[in-house]
């Protein structure tokens, strides 16, 4: 609650600064629209902006779900078997070495102008922090816990699976939560990169469309909507992931 209030205060200060800047510089609306002009642009076509926001939100959600599931499976596979780890570790690093900006147009060529390439890009971007954080967590079970589990479980493949399920995975959930929160934070960026590479819907498309027509206030309205969407999405994932690890005491 206190966090929400302080976030609101920061938002208000930023809004005030924007207002002051646009008023004092006296720039035309096609360079820097004021908050009021931006609000007017939003009010002029709310359905247009919100429909496209829904598209972006869906891309974010689906990309996040795919990226998270893929990342979790990848980390689990790496934890389960050393050979898998040897193969997947370089793949994991390589997946991040390739700039997504460069891949986006290729994805559009392959998958068309619809949602598929956006979801693919978001998946690629979100997969890495989730896989890396969860894999780290799976490798860092407190030694005392790991040894106690080994003594209790005995040997064999089935025993190793049960240790993974009852000890290793729960112990890695805080790390997974961190990875998911980082992934949620970049979901909006990934979706918009996809939209910029080629699209006919979404907030990124609205921004390009408005830019092409010098409707900068509309572009700002789309940007602010995207901002709100990104924050709401990150906050939602934040709440959900913290609920996943209720035993973690956090310092206020």
């Amino acid at each position, binding site marked *: 609650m206190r966090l929400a209030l302080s976030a609101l205060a920061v938002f208000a200060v930023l809004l005030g600064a924007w207002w002051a800047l646009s008023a004092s510089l006296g720039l035309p609306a096609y360079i820097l629209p004021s908050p009021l002009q931006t609000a007017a642009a939003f009010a002029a076509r709310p359905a247009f902006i919100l429909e496209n926001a829904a598209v972006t939100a869906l891309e974010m959600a689906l990309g996040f779900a795919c990226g998270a599931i893929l990342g979790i499976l990848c980390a689990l596979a790496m934890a389960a078997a050393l050979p898998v780890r040897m193969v997947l570790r370089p793949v994991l690093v390589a997946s991040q070495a390739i700039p997504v900006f460069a891949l986006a147009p290729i994805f559009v060529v392959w998958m068309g102008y619809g949602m598929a390439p956006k979801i693919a890009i978001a998946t690629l971007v979100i997969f890495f922090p989730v896989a890396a954080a969860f894999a780290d967590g799976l490798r860092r079970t407190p030694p005392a816990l790991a040894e106690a589990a080994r003594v209790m479980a005995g040997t064999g493949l089935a025993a190793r699976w049960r240790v993974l399920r009852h000890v290793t995975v729960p112990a890695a959930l805080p790390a997974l939560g961190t990875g998911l929160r980082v992934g949620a934070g970049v979901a909006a960026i990934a979706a918009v990169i996809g939209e910029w590479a080629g699209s006919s819907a979404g907030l990124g498309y609205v921004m390009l469309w408005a830019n092409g027509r010098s409707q900068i206030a509309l572009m700002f309205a789309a940007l602010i909507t995207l901002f709100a969407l990104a924050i709401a999405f990150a906050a939602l994932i934040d709440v959900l992931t913290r609920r996943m690890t209720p*035993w973690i005491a956090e310092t206020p």
Partner: protein
Amino acid sequence: MAASPAATRIDISGLGLSYDGTALFDGFDLTVEPGELLCLLGPSGAGKSTLLRAVAGLARTERGGVRFDGGCGVALMTQDDALLPWAKAIDNVVLGARLRGDRPDVQRAAALLRAAGVDAAAGRPATLSGGMRKRVALARLLYEDRPVALLDEPFSALDAITRRSVQALTRRLLAGRTAMLVTHDPFEALAMADRIVVLAGSPVRIALDAAPPRSGALRDPADPALRPLYLAVLAALEDAA
């Protein structure tokens, strides 16, 4: 509660084990008699914990080994109580059953928690005091129902009063089992042990092997009758260091 399992003799013979390239154990022998509570003392790094880990099957032995006469199977309790931070007390006690794919016996776990002085409905470890966590760990050790109990400095982080009560409880509940308890506190050994072994390195040898007078209950370590043994343990520890 189930009856105590048949007592087991632990036979460590010709144990060879290296740590970081140096031979820590080189032909080490030690026998722990059935039902005996053996306290292992020794300076830091003397190999007490390593010996316990070797008996638990956690340390890779190079030569010789550990034999159990009369049923094998060990249960381990460590200084870091190794409770699952996300699980309630009862779920921590039945963890072993889950890890073996057995059906958890919640009734028995609750009875063991009560015997250890813990509310069977107690919550996660973070909501419990250090003493209570030790009691939960002890209940888990007993739930495992193994003939051999291994305890690695289990009470070193507790205050004097709590420690004394958990020592008494441990001694009572472990009766009939063969147990090895690592401690750095001579008084703990004097109070609890059937037999005291002081280790010195390296390679590890037995610097002292002595038995305090037999006693069913926890001894008073300040008892004048124990003073000669206390001095002998202290001298062995000083020699070993």
